[in-house]
Every structure is written in structure tokens, then in C-alpha cells.
């Protein structure tokens, strides 16, 4: 493992942007851990610390009309997709101002406006959804991409194989992003998979696949751009294995008995934020005052988000059973379909 970033730096503004995006995720989640320890937020909490380059690099290459499907370790994906830190934290506080009105929590973040489809607590459960979203796009003739994030643990599930097969068979516009952090909860990859090369598995389904250094945000971005271009231009599904590592435990309940501290320390030397920061400093792209300003911006964003969540209100208990089914005439029913589909429906009625 090289402690250095091999990829050439882009222009300073873009480098700074990527650095800031990763730092936003890092600081949000450090705050989550703090709030969890203080019992301000509850439930299961799975943080992404160490893996920020994956979400930052991939989501950077997506367009606004694309869709994102993620897992239960999805705070970073939601944030970088455009859900505000306040709405994310308020959700974890169980507040009405949360992105799911407090009904989802840490593992179930959703946002219609940014086409963020979760937030799924079932490992591999999101993969068939991504295939279906892509199927809808293909059938409607839309050139949109669905990016589907999942861990390497999902690769052992049948839904992984069913989904890759369907996506390849029907040449659907899905970008499969396997976040290989080497541990499915506490089970090391070699203990759960006969074949530990994820890209090879995808290749078995005739899907173009690459393995990428998931600690190098520039490498992730470059590979993702290539893959997204391939998907968007009608090349069917593409697959990225993003080799990364989570610096913290699986969840707040995990005593981490399954791995050596030295292994964690070794990976932390390749902290994706520090790698980019060091490369930028070496290249003269990050004057000290800019770094200080960037950190101050992120800190202010998180401070504001905590204040927003703390000040949030609670949904009335009378609304407990709201959203079990769509209420006739509700806002939801009327916006059940996207603009495109409403338009189509109108055409259908007119015809």
C-alpha cells in the first residue's frame, strides 16, 4: 500500500472541491458518533469514515437526473447527492424535519428531489431496485444512469447475482459500485468468498468491470467517469470494485474483535482525505489559509446542521399510520409519478 497518491491532480478548484466533499462526510459522521455517544441519536449507526473517496469520486460523475441507491452506511452518499446535513441529522434525531420525517433513521435515508433511493438495511436488497429503476429508464427512452452502492458482503447474496444477470441480459443503465472494505460486519472477505476478486465476478456476467484504489478519490472519479460514460452511451451495466477500508467498527455496537489494530493503523496511513490534502500541498494547490477556510466552512455547516436538528419538531403521534398507504388526493398520490410519467399519463388519457 503506497502512502502516496499516484493520480495526477486536476485543477486546484476541483481538487479543493473533492477535498471539501470528503471532509463534509467525515465531519458529519464524526459528529454522528459524538451525538450517538451522547445518546442524542439512537438505533443502529454505521459510519463511513475512511471510505469517503468512494462516494465523493463516484457521485461527482453523476448528473442531477441520475438515481442513487445505497446501503445502510449511506449518510455520505445522501450528503454528497445533495441532501442537507441538517435534514440527515434531523432524521437521526427522529424529527419531522428529517429527510424522511423521522420514519427512516440512519439506515433509511431517502430523498425524492435528488433521486436518492436509500438507505436499505438488507444487504444486496437495493440491487434489484437499481435494476428496476434502470429498466424504467430504458423502457421510457431516458438516458439516465442508476448508481448502486453496496458492500462486498452483498456479493455473497443471491440478489447480487440475480441483479447482475438481469442488468447484463437486458443491457440496463446501471453502475454497480462495490465498496470492498474487506469485512462483511466482522467476516473477512477470504472467509466469505471463494473468489475474492469482485471485478472477476462481474466479468463473468459480461459486464465491463474495473478494480480501483478506493482511497484515491481522483482514481475513483476517473474510473467512475469512464464507467458512467459507458453506461450513459448505451453500453449496458458497468461495475467498479472500489478497494477501501472503514477505519471504525461496523456499527456502534461492534467491539471489533475480528481485526488487528495494526491493520487499521496501516490503512489509516492511506486516509483518503490526508492523501489528497498532502498531494495538494506538495503541488502548491492548498495554501494554509485555504485549508483553514475550507475546514471552517465544513465545521460551520455541521454546527448549523446540529442546531437545525436540535431545534426540530416531532411528528404528531396522530400521524403514526400516515404513509402506510398513499392517501387519496394527498400530495403524494398526485406526485406519484415523475413529471415525465405524468405527461405520459396525460397523453394516455387524452388518447
Amino acid at each position, binding site marked *: 500500500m503506497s502512502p502516496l497518491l499516484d493520480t495526477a491532480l486536476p485543477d486546484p478548484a476541483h481538487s479543493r472541491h473533492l477535498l471539501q466533499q470528503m471532509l463534509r462526510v467525515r465531519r458529519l459522521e464524526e459528529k454522528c458518533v459524538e451525538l450517538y455517544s451522547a445518546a442524542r441519536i439512537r438505533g443502529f449507526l454505521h459510519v463511513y469514515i475512511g471510505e469517503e473517496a468512494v462516494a465523493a469520486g463516484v457521485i461527482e460523475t453523476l448528473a442531477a437526473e441520475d438515481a442513487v441507491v445505497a446501503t445502510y452506511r449511506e449518510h455520505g452518499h445522501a450528503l454528497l447527492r445533495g441532501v442537507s446535513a441538517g435534514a440527515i441529522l434531523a432524521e437521526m434525531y427522529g424529527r419531522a424535519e428529517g429527510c424522511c420525517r423521522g420514519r427512516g433513521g440512519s439506515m433509511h435515508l431517502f430523498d425524492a428531489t435528488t433521486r436518492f433511493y436509500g438507505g436499505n438495511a438488507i444487504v444486496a436488497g437495493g440491487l434489484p*431496485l437499481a435494476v428496476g429503476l434502470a429498466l*424504467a429508464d430504458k423502457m421510457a427512452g431516458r438516458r439516465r444512469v442508476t448508481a448502486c452502492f453496496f458492500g462486498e458482503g452483498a456479493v455473497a447474496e443471491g440478489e447480487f447475482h440475480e441483479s447482475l444477470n438481469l442488468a447484463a441480459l437486458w443491457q440496463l443503465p446501471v453502475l454497480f459500485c462495490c465498496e470492498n472494505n474487506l469485512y462483511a460486519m466482522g467476516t473477512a472477505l477470504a472467509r466469505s468468498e471463494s473468489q475474492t476478486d469482485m471485478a472477476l465476478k462481474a466479468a463473468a456476467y459480461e459486464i465491463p468491470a474495473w478494480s480501483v484504489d478506493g482511497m484515491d478519490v481522483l482514481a475513483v472519479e476517473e474510473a467512475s467517469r469512464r464507467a458512467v460514460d459507458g453506461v450513459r452511451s448505451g453500453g449496458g451495466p458497468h461495475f467498479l470494485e472500489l478497494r477501501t477500508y472503514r477505519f471504525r467498527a461496523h456499527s456502534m455496537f461492534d467491539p471489533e474483535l475480528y481485526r488487528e489494530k495494526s491493520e487499521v493503523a496501516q490503512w489509516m496511513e492511506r486516509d483518503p482525505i490526508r492523501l489528497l490534502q498532502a498531494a495538494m500541498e506538495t503541488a502548491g494547490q492548498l495554501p494554509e489559509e485555504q485549508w483553514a477556510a475550507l475546514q471552517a466552512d465544513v465545521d460551520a455547516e455541521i454546527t448549523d446542521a446540529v442546531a437545525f436538528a436540535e431545534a426540530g419538531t416531532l411528528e404528531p403521534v396522530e400521524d403514526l399510520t400516515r404513509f402506510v398507504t*398513499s392517501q387519496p388526493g394527498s400530495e403524494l398520490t398526485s406526485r406519484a409519478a415523475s413529471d415525465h410519467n405524468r405527461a405520459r399519463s396525460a397523453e394516455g388519457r387524452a388518447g
Partner: protein
Amino acid sequence: MKSTYREAVRAALRDAMRRDERVFLMGEDVGRYGGGFAVSLGLLEEFGPERVRDTPLSESGFVGAGIGAALGGMRPVVEIMTVNFSLLALDQIVNNAATLLHMSGGQFNVPLVIRMTTGAGRQLGAQHSHSLEGWYAHIPGLRILTPATLADARGMLWTALEDPDPVLIFEHGSLYNVAGELEDDAGPVELDKAAVLRPGTDVTLITYGGTLAAVLDAADQLAGEGIDAEVIDLRVLRPLDDGTILGSVGRTHRAVVVDEGWRSGSISAEIAARIGEHAFFDLDAPVERVCSEEVPVPYAKHMELAALPSAERVVAAARRAVGARG
């Protein structure tokens, strides 16, 4: 016009695909094979392979893809060949289809219809003879339909497609060949009410789906004995139409619930409990239940028949209820 149940379902599918180009049919062998039960025969030729879409044998994958396509604005009708195969897709049905609307705080509804065959009576052995619709009726967020008549086989699909939420339609395998008269202008039907198919004053026989015929037969036999039975076809197992059930029990004061599912933890248990909760003082006799014997359904014809609710068992239960008048 004359129609079979199978033709009525097919007409409903054809009608739905003609009405709305977002509707498509997806499942194992629905295209070139014409459907495992020949329901979709001919639809591929009319609508093409994009809209009559053969899938691999991967229930979780294609049911999940149906949910995703519904989220993406399509109106998929997913066919699962038989209810036993739906267990491979339970994760997608229960964890995603039923929960996404609530988990997302009302942002993501799933306008998906899943059709599947259910029930026994065709000597298919245990795994192909389950009646698990009552399980699905346990899940908030799903609507569970059990068309027992030609009119419902023809009419429930379109109404289901107009529902913004996931709807599961259970078609009893023994019904496909049933033939009868279907109104020429048969079309969409409402999905909120149970139907009183035969009014009566002495006892209420409550059933749905594949056992309706046996219950109507039982009602005829009972009439011959001077017992005037009211027959309710539930039509919808979730949400249950309490009003029709309780209203009828309020008039007849006796109830027999007939359910091809196993007794323990079944939809019949739920109905009996609701009658007990809300109509206890209307009752002149304990609620009777006629369910399948609690065995995996056997293959041998005589054993299979012995395991399933029959008109004779319904008649006996109704006699007990009426005899309890004292």
C-alpha cells in the same frame, strides 16, 4: 359473453396494456411460453417482448426490478408463477415494496401489481399447493386481492394498477378453467368491499378465492335443510371489510369462516378474532372455522381432498352453529 377465468385475467391484462403504455407484464415464461398457466398466451404477439418480458428464474431479482421500475414511473405487473416461488422474493415484497412509502416519509410509493397462483386441489404436492395469501395479509403497506369470480378476475387488475401502492393478486389455480357468463361491458371493479353473494338469515358463511365454490355448494345443501345461509366473498384480505362481515353477523348471529390456509395464525383466525372483538354480543354460537388440515398438502388425491375444506365440512360447521341455538 362466455369466458373462462383464465380468459378474464388475460382480457384484463390486454386491456391494461392498451390503456396505459407504462403497464408491462414481467415474469417467468409469460412471453414465448404463454404463461405457466397460459394466462398470457398471445400477449407477446400483440405487445412485443419489451412489454411482455420473459425473466430468468430469479424471483427476488425480477420482483425487486418490478419495485424499482414502479419507483421509476412504470406500472409493472409482475407474475410469480406460484405462491411457493414468491417466498424467494419475500425480501423484496416485505422489506421494500411494503415499507418504502413509510420509511421514506411518504416520498416513494410503489405502484406495483404482483399476480400469483395460490392454492391446492390439483395433486401438485406440498410445495406447489400452499395457500399463503393470509401471510401477506399480515403486512401493512400491501393490498391483498383474491378474485373468486369471473367479474373480479376481469376487473380487479385495472383498479389495482390505479392504486399508488403495491397490490398482490392471488389467483387460485383451480379457477383458471372455470367458465361462465361475463358481462359484455365487464370492466374495473372497486376493491374496498366484500361481496354478499347470497343473502341469508340463519348463518354467515365467510370465504374467499378457491373455496367460494364449495361454500356456495354448501349454502345450496343447507337451503335444502331449511337453513338460510348468507355467503360473503371477502375479495380483499387486506384491508378487510369489517363493515360487511360485522353487518352480516349482526343479522344472522352465526358465522362460519372458510379458509384454505392452515388454521393456526391464519386469516380465518383474524376474522374470527374481529367478530369476537366487535360482534360478541350479536353471536348466538361460537364462530366456526373450516380450514385446511395442518399438514403439508399431500399428493395422493384422497389424502389431498381430506386435507382441504369441502362443502361437506362447511355444511357440518353451519349445522353446528345453527344447532347451538339451543
